[in-house]
């Protein structure tokens, strides 16, 4: 398994744009250490739509140049210590967004259009700090009607964890459709799965309904409990104690290094 994950990690090259899912949607924590060992840095992370432990650890490991996100936190375990420190020190560039703007950018990529419009945002500093977004006057309105245009977000790679995959590379994402949205938008998609099943997930209409087809999946590897310490819906809950242990340790750079040298490698 470890060598499989290392093989997957080697697809990541310096400077790539990498899309990662929200805590509860299937974070491939199993890939975090292989990504760090692989060492490709200067990454642009896109959190879909928010980030947590994995993002914090990649930042702590020095692999991240820029984070585009609606939030980064450890949820019940508090703020994301390495993220917060890096932002305050100006060591990473932060592109603050709002959840539906991330979804909108991925949707634009999915549809092959340069932008999609989005309501809200006007008058916020989120918008004021995003020179890459535009405001136009809605061409369909009689009177003035400003509306924001969000440009397409085109990740080089999406990485996530799912409950199961089949031998053909179809992966079951259930109702976590944001994982499909990430894969549609991304050039490549790397998936870890709790288990590899022998049945064809597309052969049965019930499982097909929750399946992302192999057309979008570049590589799959088995990784039991691959979301830990995050939970995986229908499989296991979040290990909040583990998140808190990390949160406490990673308050300092040394604490982070010590934690990564022990707990994660174990």
């Amino acid at each position: 398994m470890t060598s499989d994950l290392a093989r997957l990690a080697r697809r990541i090259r310096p400077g790539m744009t990498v899309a990662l899912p929200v805590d509860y949607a299937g974070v491939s924590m199993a890939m975090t250490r292989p990504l760090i060992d692989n060492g490709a840095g200067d990454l642009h992370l896109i959190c879909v739509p928010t980030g947590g432990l994995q993002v914090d650890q990649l930042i702590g490991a020095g692999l991240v140049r820029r984070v585009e996100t609606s939030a980064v936190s450890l949820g019940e375990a508090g703020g994301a210590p390495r993220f917060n420190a890096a932002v305050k020190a100006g060591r990473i560039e932060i592109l603050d967004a709002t959840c539906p703007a991330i979804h909108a950018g991925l949707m634009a990529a999915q549809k092959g259009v340069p932008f999609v419009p989005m309501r809200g945002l006007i008058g916020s500093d989120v918008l004021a700090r995003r020179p890459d977004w535009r405001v136009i006057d809605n061409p369909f309105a009689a009177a003035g009607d400003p509306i924001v245009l969000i440009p397409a977000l085109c990740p080089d790679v999406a990485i996530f964890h799912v409950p199961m995959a089949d031998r053909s590379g179809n992966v079951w994402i259930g109702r976590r459709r944001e994982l499909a949205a990430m894969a549609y938008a991304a050039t490549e998609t790397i998936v870890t799965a709790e288990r590899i099943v022998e049945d064809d997930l597309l052969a049965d209409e019930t499982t097909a309904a929750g399946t992302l087809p192999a057309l979008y999946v570049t590589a799959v590897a088995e990784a039991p409990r691959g979301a830990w310490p995050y939970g995986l819906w229908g499989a296991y809950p979040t290990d909040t104690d583990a998140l808190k242990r990390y949160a406490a340790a990673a308050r300092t750079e040394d604490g982070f290094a010590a934690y990564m040298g022990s707990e994660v490698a174990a």
Partner: protein
Amino acid sequence: MSPALPREILIHTIAGLLDGVRHVAVGASSPIPAAGAMLRRALDEAAREVRLSILGSVRHNFFTNGSAELFDSAAQGRLDAFFLGGGQIDGQANVNLVGTGDYPKVDVRWPGSFGSAYLYFTVPKVILFREEHSPRVMVDKVDFISAPGTSPPGVYRPGGPVALLTSRCLFGFDRARPGFTLASLHPGQTLDDVRQATGFGFAHDPAPPTTPGPDAATLRLMRGRILEELAETYPAFAADWARDLAAHAPEGATA
């Protein structure tokens, strides 16, 4: 029965603010808003269905289209109420979930704006809920506007703030003025307490009323069914509430 606890006043007040809603969403770490919504649902169940979405929950998730569906349902007018907090809230109802000091190299960094810059515009009843009511939270002007409290004419905005609920009081929000109006003081709070704890000006009666607590039947409902429902999703908060109840129980009623 012992008198209503502070958190029970909050839960009951939220249920009142949610009067008439069909669908309310609450954040994953928001037990008090969730309890308020559960109370609303219980109070209305004879008359109509109140739907409650708890973000990130599997059990209280009736969405099937990923995390974008909450925002889409708001866009479609299918989400009536939502709660927003904020590291800072100012007198114009601007909220800041990003940090203090000069952006981007802020002094204190909070997680980020989440969906606020969208839902604040599109959900008709946004309830600002922040228990800490101090001058560092209730500021004259936020350092970063995650989402503005009001918008100029011509900006599409079917939604916005209707109230600000804190551990001290309940404010209404007047979008036209714009500004907050003190609606009621929670038991034990004075107008002066609130003035000193608040960094922004607000309108008020000379003698503001006290936030009403639940009647006995409602309180029984809260301590029975609502506490039980809440425990499924927020076990730590529910246990804490139950401990509080045991501590405040009248003599002879304790086990």
